[in-house]
């Protein structure tokens, strides 16, 4: 079975964010970019499926500029077979992103599309389910593990207060969260092999973004830092402050 995995290049989560000169985006200078951690779970899930089946092809797909190739090379190094870069602008409008991805996936024979539950930059958790609607496929979000049963995929979802099991007919879209799919590290052999794997670049069929970023700011620094005291003896004073000063109890 052929599987598409959609990935995004984002700043490493340990990055200290600075606002760039345009006042609308981050200053990329000195920032280490990585594959969004949730997308790594999705890559891992796709690779395990392929390995278990002993056949099929895993395609890594992304929307972005030429630098987004890094994310695709990382996916190839983990074990994806081929990659496609849709060259176009990445905006906060997830529907514009989903539309570009859908145009590529529609033309392919891929019963399963996997994505991370959200990207670690915009954090909106929307491209996966939007893509599913555009493709006319069912979708399960925030899936921690799943299995294929013939023409169905059975997914365990992390939901509030418990675990839900849902069953979707293929073709389907599944977004992956932390759970069973701890990502493998790319081996040196994998990294070398990735350089020879096919990476196709084509213009994205994207629509204009209808979410317009006016400005980006850093949050105000918290002016905290009041040490109430040391050890258990400080507890009554803490509780008094929480009740009387912070009005929080």
């Amino acid at each position, binding site marked *: 079975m052929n599987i598409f995995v959609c990935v995004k290049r984002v*700043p490493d*989560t*340990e990055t*200290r964010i600075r*606002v760039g000169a345009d006042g609308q985006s*981050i200053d990329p200078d000195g920032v280490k970019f990585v594959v969004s951690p*949730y997308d790594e779970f999705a890559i891992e899930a796709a690779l395990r499926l392929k390995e278990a089946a002993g056949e099929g092809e895993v395609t890594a797909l992304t929307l972005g500029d030429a630098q987004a190739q890094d994310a695709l090379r990382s996916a190839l190094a983990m074990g994806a077979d081929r990659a496609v870069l849709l060259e176009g602008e990445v905006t*906060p409008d*997830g*529907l514009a992103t989903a539309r570009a991805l859908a145009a590529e996936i529609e033309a392919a024979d891929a019963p399963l599309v996997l994505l991370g539950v959200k990207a*670690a*930059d915009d*954090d*909106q958790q*929307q491209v*996966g*389910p939007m893509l*599913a*609607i555009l493709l006319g496929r069912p979708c*399960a*979000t*925030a899936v921690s593990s799943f299995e294929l049963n013939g023409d169905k995929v059975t997914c365990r979802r*992390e*939901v*509030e*207060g*418990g675990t*839900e*099991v*849902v*069953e*979707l007919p293929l073709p389907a879209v599944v977004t992956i969260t*932390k*759970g069973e799919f701890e990502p493998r590290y790319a081996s040196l052999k994998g990294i070398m092999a990735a350089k020879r794997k096919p990476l196709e670049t084509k213009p994205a069929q994207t629509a204009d973004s*209808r*979410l*317009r*970023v006016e*400005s980006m*700011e*850093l*949050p105000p620094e*918290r002016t*905290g*830092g*009041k*040490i*109430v*005291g040391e*050890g*258990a003896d*400080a*507890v009554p004073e*803490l*509780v008094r*402050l*929480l009740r009387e000063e*912070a009005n*929080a*109890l």
Partner: protein
Amino acid sequence: MSNVLAVVEQRDGALRGTAREVVAAAVGLARDSGGEVHALLLGGPGIGASVDGLAEGGAEVVKVVEHEALADYHPDGYPAVVARIAGEGDYSSVLFAASALGKDLAPRVAARMDLPLAGDVTGLTFEGGAVTAIRPVYAGKAFTRVTIDATPALVSIRPNVFQPVDQAGAGRVETVEMTEDPSSWPTRVVSFEATGGDVPDVAEAGVVVSGGRGMKDPENWALLEELRAALGDGAGLGASRAVVDAGWRPHGEQVGQTGKTVAPKLYFAIGISGAIQHLAGMRTAGTIVAVNRDADAPIFKVADYGIVGDLFEVLPRLTEEIRTLREGS
């Protein structure tokens, strides 16, 4: 005049805590954009009797869709019904909660309506005929101001940020017919296994008790659970990435950039040093309390109140004091 639609959630037939927050956000928008606030509630037969608080929060109209197939959330059914009703009305904006359910529902509704969605916003204004939202990005390390160039403007709001208002609305209940055919919904919900009991999700809890590596052993979470229980029904449990990675706690409790971003009124960071990606996820909490044995831990730089010391001595005392306080009040 265009109205504002607030899509509210129920669980087991009772309105969720976020319901009045979504209505409050809608009331705030309608003050500038004009129009009335309409609430929309989907549920099983009889759900129309569970709309208490929506009128008191400012809803003029409560649209109710009752059907057996809508008793619990369905990932195909709910988006179809909500998109239809949102599309039939003349709405300037449609608001959702950015809850676990809302994060599944809102993007599907947006795609069905061919509209963009501003997700998980912490502020909303109506200026110059358009809705502008404040959106945290990089899990709260930065904020963007985003204008939505589409009508209706679709937005999901972060739980615990928009405070319910007391503004009496008429709350006229209107029943809307269900015209969708549940047999056409491809997804089958097989089972639901409750794990957390009645403990609210960390992203929606009004008070969060989080533990980190300093807890030393997963068995010591009993101490955190006692503090959580002492704080009352609205309190939830959180965890640092380190302890989730170690397998001590489920990922659903993780606070931070690869977990959940939370904004409770009160946040306890117990034995958490304060890695940058954790701080990003909780820095918008109302009041932050930190307990850590290391006086130089970064968590104390964002905490409003800190106690330096052995958490195994501090925690039981804290639980006891809070229990006494709450029982006395």
